[in-house]
């Protein structure tokens, strides 16, 4: 039982992390119709910048703020130099060019910071753990991370649903040409969405850094998980991304602990210990397939 609670909390927290990455990505897909594979490196870059700024500025918090801003600025530079020229191009061109950006940046951080994993210490105020229930202590930092994800989700929902900029984002997602025909500077809207998305991914990278090792390619796997989130949630939908991120986080974390027991119960002998891990790692993709079989456009499609 305690194990189940811990796994559920961990799953929730993974879900919030995924949401921070997927939120920017889904808006970029939805509003700009732009396939940005390089979103995962923003997460990686955020983590590295977090380590760097925390050392220079002396502390996690200043590292968090400076790194998020720097990651957002870096995203805008990439947009200006490369991505802007790809909006009108085919999806294939977008995939190839952003694939090139990933290769470059993964190697770039290796050149600058080396291949060895770096560590970012937790902030002192959050580095302890608390008594969750009998015989179970849970780290405060993980709770803080999950709460942060919730707060950001709430803020994004407010912005997207309640402000003029949000209205334009939604309008841009459903009919880009019409929005620009009405006199809205769609290029500025793109840049804004892109910058915020890059900043959120960088922010997620700094938040995750104390829990994982900061190393090159750390964004690749999360990028693909974020894709799964977007596919399940429906491209362009913040609400869909939130729900799907929770599903993916919980299914992945709980699945890994439960499916091995399940395999032991169904299969006997050594086969179960072999099948279990393989099946667990496939679980979220099977969930994705199941959702797509019923709803090809995801749970909350923007365009029907």
């Amino acid at each position, binding site marked *: 039982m305690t194990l189940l609670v811990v796994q559920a909390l961990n799953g929730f927290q993974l879900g919030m992390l995924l949401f921070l990455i997927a939120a920017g990505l889904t808006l970029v897909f939805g509003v700009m119709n732009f396939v940005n594979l390089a979103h995962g490196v923003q997460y990686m870059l955020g983590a590295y910048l977090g380590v760097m700024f925390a050392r220079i500025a002396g502390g996690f918090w200043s590292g968090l703020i400076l790194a998020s801003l720097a990651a957002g600025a870096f995203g805008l530079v990439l947009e200006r130099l490369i991505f802007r020229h790809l909006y009108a191009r085919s999806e294939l061109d977008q995939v190839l060019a952003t*694939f090139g950006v990933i290769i470059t940046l993964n190697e770039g951080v290796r050149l600058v910071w080396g291949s060895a994993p770096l560590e970012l210490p937790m902030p002192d105020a959050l580095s302890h753990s608390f008594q969750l229930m009998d015989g179970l202590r849970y780290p405060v930092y993980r709770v803080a991370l999950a709460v942060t994800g919730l707060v950001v989700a709430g803020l994004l929902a407010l912005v997207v649903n309640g402000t003029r900029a949000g209205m334009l984002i939604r309008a841009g997602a459903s009919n880009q040409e019409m929005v620009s025909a009405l006199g809205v500077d769609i290029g500025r809207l793109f840049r804004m969405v892109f910058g915020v998305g890059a900043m959120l991914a960088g922010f997620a990278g700094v938040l995750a850094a104390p829990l994982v090792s900061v190393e090159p390619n750390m964004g690749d796997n999360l990028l693909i998980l974020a894709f799964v989130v977007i596919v399940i949630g429906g491209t362009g939908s913040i609400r869909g991304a939130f729900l799907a991120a929770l599903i993916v986080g919980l299914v992945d974390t709980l699945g890994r602990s439960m499916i091995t027991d399940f395999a032991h119960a169904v299969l006997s002998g050594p086969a179960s210990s072999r099948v279990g891990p393989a099946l667990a790692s496939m679980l979220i*993709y099977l969930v994705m397939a199941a959702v797509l079989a019923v709803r090809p456009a995801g749970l909350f499609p923007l365009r029907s």
Partner: protein
Amino acid sequence: MSQPSLRVPLALFAALALVPILRAAGVPIGGFVPLLLERVMVFALAAMSLDLILGVGGLISFGHAAPLAIGAYTVAALDHAGVTEAAIALPCALVASGIFAALTGAVALRTRGVNFIMITLAFAQMVYFAVSSLSDYGGDDGYTLYSRTTVFGRPWLEARSFYVTALVVLFLAWLLLRVITASRFGRALAAVRQNRVRVQALGLNAFAIELVAMVIAAMLCAVAGVLLANEAEFVSPAYGSWSHSGDLMVMVILGGIGSLHGAIIGALVVVLAEEGLGRLTSHWPLIYGPALVLAVLFLRRGLAGIGGSRG
């Protein structure tokens, strides 16, 4: 669509055939060059199979490393069980990759555009994680084969004969793909790329056409996986990694999308670039990556013009 000129592809195969011909004539060609070309041919086969769906069918699959890994891991699994005969391994690899492509393709083809790209990528990642967790076959570390696969008991995949075998397989695959693209089915596949609605209005089932193409492409790619496992005598989850999928796409585009033989040029360029730059500096991705970005931004037709294919 007229069949592209045969001159370039035949010249390519003739050039590749030079190594065994010169060897037969007594010229000692050893070491590095044949080994490199063996790798080129294996990846050319994988890229050529991708060209069927990417170039002819217009389906942007970012998961073509998955059937490559499935083919390679079929060899590893059978090797682990003491079976090293291609007459068993090859059909197993074909069936496994065919079923995988049919199941995942049926899901992915329900969507278009960005979602198709993301879903094929996700399913390939599923294969990557699945084979990474197979502790019997070395998990993350990969699996070293006890012995290379025999073909009806003959040592055609041993180091001495591998080059010729790979060349023959690549040539047969090219012929097969040419026949397929020229056939009624191939024309229908190209038509779906050009105008899906019109094809369906003609009473053809666009979904079925694309799904069959994905299955054929995956099975051919699994053959490349069987070859790759033998060439390296080693199988690793990295074969199924998403950067491999990306590399296969780059090969297809560089060589000229839809031209089939362009995959050989693309594989040659990418393998040589990785080897050459890798010798120059361990940070070679810092050259490869920006080169790729610049090529997409400025060489809008890729090396396709040089390849003599349609743009």
